[in-house]
Protein backbone atom coordinates (compact mmCIF):
# COMPACT_ATOMS: atom_id res chain seq x y z
CA UNK A 1 0.00 0.00 0.00
CA UNK A 2 1.46 3.32 -1.01
CA UNK A 3 1.39 6.47 1.10
CA UNK A 4 -1.06 7.98 -1.39
CA UNK A 5 -3.40 5.02 -0.94
CA UNK A 6 -3.22 5.34 2.82
CA UNK A 7 -3.92 9.03 2.58
CA UNK A 8 -6.91 8.60 0.34
CA UNK A 9 -8.19 5.81 2.58
CA UNK A 10 -8.00 8.16 5.54
CA UNK A 11 -9.69 10.97 3.65
CA UNK A 12 -12.48 8.64 2.60
CA UNK A 13 -12.90 7.36 6.15
CA UNK A 14 -13.28 10.92 7.38
CA UNK A 15 -15.82 11.79 4.69
CA UNK A 16 -17.82 8.58 4.80
CA UNK A 17 -18.23 8.22 8.56
CA UNK A 18 -20.27 10.80 10.39
CA UNK A 19 -18.31 10.08 13.55
CA UNK A 20 -14.78 8.93 12.88
CA UNK A 21 -12.22 8.29 15.59
CA UNK A 22 -8.57 7.65 14.89
CA UNK A 23 -7.00 6.03 17.92
CA UNK A 24 -4.30 3.79 19.27
CA UNK A 25 -5.82 0.36 19.65
CA UNK A 26 -9.52 -0.31 19.38
CA UNK A 27 -12.56 0.81 21.39
CA UNK A 28 -12.54 -2.65 22.94
CA UNK A 29 -8.82 -2.58 23.61
CA UNK A 30 -7.47 0.95 23.64
CA UNK A 31 -3.68 0.98 23.60
CA UNK A 32 -3.29 4.41 25.19
CA UNK A 33 -5.02 6.31 27.98
CA UNK A 34 -5.86 9.25 25.76
CA UNK A 35 -7.45 7.06 23.13
CA UNK A 36 -9.30 5.23 25.88
CA UNK A 37 -10.79 8.47 27.14
CA UNK A 38 -11.92 9.61 23.71
CA UNK A 39 -13.54 6.30 22.79
CA UNK A 40 -14.93 6.05 26.31
CA UNK A 41 -16.69 9.38 25.88
CA UNK A 42 -18.27 8.22 22.64
CA UNK A 43 -19.27 4.94 24.26
CA UNK A 44 -20.85 6.82 27.14
CA UNK A 45 -22.90 8.88 24.69
CA UNK A 46 -24.02 5.71 22.96
CA UNK A 47 -23.28 7.00 19.48
CA UNK A 48 -22.25 4.84 16.61
CA UNK A 49 -18.81 5.64 15.41
CA UNK A 50 -16.10 4.30 13.21
CA UNK A 51 -12.75 3.71 14.80
CA UNK A 52 -9.43 3.15 13.14
CA UNK A 53 -6.35 1.84 14.90
CA UNK A 54 -3.38 3.85 13.70
CA UNK A 55 -0.79 1.53 15.21
CA UNK A 56 -0.47 -1.17 12.54
CA UNK A 57 1.54 1.10 10.24
CA UNK A 58 3.38 4.30 11.23
CA UNK A 59 2.42 5.83 7.91
CA UNK A 60 -1.25 5.94 8.95
CA UNK A 61 -0.40 8.46 11.63
CA UNK A 62 1.93 10.42 9.39
CA UNK A 63 -0.66 10.74 6.65
CA UNK A 64 -3.45 11.46 9.12
CA UNK A 65 -1.52 14.29 10.77
CA UNK A 66 -0.68 15.66 7.37
CA UNK A 67 -4.36 15.60 6.39
CA UNK A 68 -5.61 17.08 9.65
CA UNK A 69 -2.75 19.33 10.70
CA UNK A 70 -3.05 17.75 14.14
CA UNK A 71 0.04 16.04 15.55
CA UNK A 72 -1.35 13.73 18.21
CA UNK A 73 -3.66 10.76 18.59
CA UNK A 74 -6.60 10.37 19.13
CA UNK A 75 -8.36 12.55 16.60
CA UNK A 76 -12.11 12.79 16.41
CA UNK A 77 -13.89 13.89 13.25
CA UNK A 78 -17.59 14.66 13.04
CA UNK A 79 -19.22 15.38 9.69
CA UNK A 80 -15.81 15.49 8.06
CA UNK A 81 -14.44 18.12 10.44
CA UNK A 82 -11.75 17.69 13.06
CA UNK A 83 -13.37 18.17 16.46
CA UNK A 84 -10.22 17.66 18.47
CA UNK A 85 -7.92 15.39 20.39
CA UNK A 86 -8.58 13.85 23.77
CA UNK A 87 -8.42 17.10 25.74
CA UNK A 88 -10.99 18.87 23.60
CA UNK A 89 -13.17 15.77 23.33
CA UNK A 90 -13.21 15.40 27.12
CA UNK A 91 -13.88 19.09 27.69
CA UNK A 92 -16.77 18.92 25.25
CA UNK A 93 -18.02 15.69 26.75
CA UNK A 94 -18.10 17.11 30.23
CA UNK A 95 -19.77 20.34 29.15
CA UNK A 96 -22.43 18.53 27.14
CA UNK A 97 -21.19 20.14 23.96
CA UNK A 98 -20.15 16.83 22.48
CA UNK A 99 -23.62 15.37 22.95
CA UNK A 100 -25.00 18.49 21.30
CA UNK A 101 -22.58 18.21 18.38
CA UNK A 102 -23.52 14.57 17.91
CA UNK A 103 -27.23 15.17 18.33
CA UNK A 104 -27.70 12.89 21.32
CA UNK A 105 -28.83 13.44 24.88
CA UNK A 106 -26.21 14.04 27.50
CA UNK A 107 -26.17 10.92 29.67
CA UNK A 108 -26.49 11.10 33.42
CA UNK A 109 -22.82 10.76 34.17
CA UNK A 110 -23.15 9.80 37.82
CA UNK A 111 -20.25 7.58 38.73
CA UNK A 112 -19.63 6.47 35.19
CA UNK A 113 -16.18 7.47 34.14
CA UNK A 114 -15.86 7.78 30.40
CA UNK A 115 -12.31 6.59 30.73
CA UNK A 116 -13.42 3.15 31.71
CA UNK A 117 -16.02 1.88 29.32
CA UNK A 118 -17.80 -1.17 30.55
CA UNK A 119 -17.89 -3.99 28.06
CA UNK A 120 -21.56 -4.47 28.79
CA UNK A 121 -22.38 -0.83 28.17
CA UNK A 122 -23.01 -1.29 24.49
CA UNK A 123 -24.92 -4.21 23.09
CA UNK A 124 -22.91 -4.13 19.93
CA UNK A 125 -19.26 -3.33 19.76
CA UNK A 126 -19.22 0.12 18.18
CA UNK A 127 -16.44 -0.91 15.92
CA UNK A 128 -18.41 -3.63 14.23
CA UNK A 129 -20.55 -1.39 12.08
CA UNK A 130 -17.52 0.27 10.59
CA UNK A 131 -15.71 -2.57 8.95
CA UNK A 132 -12.85 -0.43 7.85
CA UNK A 133 -10.25 -3.14 8.10
CA UNK A 134 -7.33 -0.97 7.17
CA UNK A 135 -5.14 -3.35 9.10
CA UNK A 136 -5.95 -6.07 6.63
CA UNK A 137 -5.36 -3.92 3.63
CA UNK A 138 -2.01 -2.92 4.95
CA UNK A 139 -0.75 -6.35 5.69
Amino acid at each position, binding site marked *: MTNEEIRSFIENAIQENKVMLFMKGTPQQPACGFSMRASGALNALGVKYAALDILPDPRIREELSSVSGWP*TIPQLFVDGELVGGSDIVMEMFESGELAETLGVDQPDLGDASPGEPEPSASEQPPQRQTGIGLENRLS
Partner: protein
Amino acid sequence: MVDTTGGGDHFRTEVVWERFEGLTRIQQHKLIYDVFGDEVGGAIHALSIKTQTPAPAGDGR
Protein backbone atom coordinates in the same frame (compact mmCIF):
# COMPACT_ATOMS: atom_id res chain seq x y z
CA MET B 1 4.16 22.96 31.99
CA VAL B 2 4.05 19.76 34.00
CA ASP B 3 5.96 16.60 33.25
CA THR B 4 3.24 14.11 34.11
CA THR B 5 5.31 10.93 34.17
CA GLY B 6 8.78 12.23 34.93
CA GLY B 7 10.00 10.64 31.72
CA GLY B 8 10.33 13.88 29.81
CA ASP B 9 7.88 12.83 27.14
CA HIS B 10 4.41 13.32 28.62
CA PHE B 11 3.43 16.85 29.51
CA ARG B 12 0.45 18.83 30.62
CA THR B 13 0.16 22.53 30.05
CA GLU B 14 -2.34 25.25 30.79
CA VAL B 15 -2.07 28.35 28.70
CA VAL B 16 -3.84 31.65 29.15
CA TRP B 17 -3.23 33.81 26.13
CA GLU B 18 -5.06 36.77 24.71
CA ARG B 19 -4.34 35.50 21.22
CA PHE B 20 -6.92 32.76 21.86
CA GLU B 21 -9.67 35.36 21.76
CA GLY B 22 -12.20 34.51 19.09
CA LEU B 23 -10.52 31.25 18.10
CA THR B 24 -12.06 27.80 18.26
CA ARG B 25 -10.49 25.32 20.62
CA ILE B 26 -8.99 23.50 17.67
CA GLN B 27 -7.29 26.70 16.56
CA GLN B 28 -6.13 27.44 20.10
CA HIS B 29 -4.57 24.01 20.51
CA LYS B 30 -2.96 24.23 17.10
CA LEU B 31 -1.25 27.44 18.18
CA ILE B 32 0.26 25.55 21.10
CA TYR B 33 1.32 22.67 18.89
CA ASP B 34 2.97 25.18 16.58
CA VAL B 35 5.16 26.33 19.47
CA PHE B 36 6.55 22.83 19.83
CA GLY B 37 6.70 22.04 16.14
CA ASP B 38 7.65 18.49 15.26
CA GLU B 39 8.45 17.65 18.86
CA VAL B 40 4.84 16.85 19.57
CA GLY B 41 4.30 13.36 18.25
CA GLY B 42 8.06 12.94 18.20
CA ALA B 43 10.12 13.46 21.33
CA ILE B 44 7.01 14.62 23.15
CA HIS B 45 4.67 11.64 23.12
CA ALA B 46 1.78 13.36 24.77
CA LEU B 47 0.93 16.96 25.42
CA SER B 48 -2.24 17.62 27.34
CA ILE B 49 -3.46 21.15 26.68
CA LYS B 50 -5.91 23.40 28.40
CA THR B 51 -6.37 26.80 26.84
CA GLN B 52 -8.08 29.90 28.11
CA THR B 53 -8.37 33.53 27.20
CA PRO B 54 -7.54 36.08 29.92
CA ALA B 55 -11.23 36.98 30.27
CA PRO B 56 -13.25 34.04 28.99
CA ALA B 57 -16.68 34.98 27.80
CA GLY B 58 -19.18 32.64 29.41
CA ASP B 59 -17.79 29.15 29.26
CA GLY B 60 -14.83 30.23 27.21
CA ARG B 61 -16.09 28.95 23.93
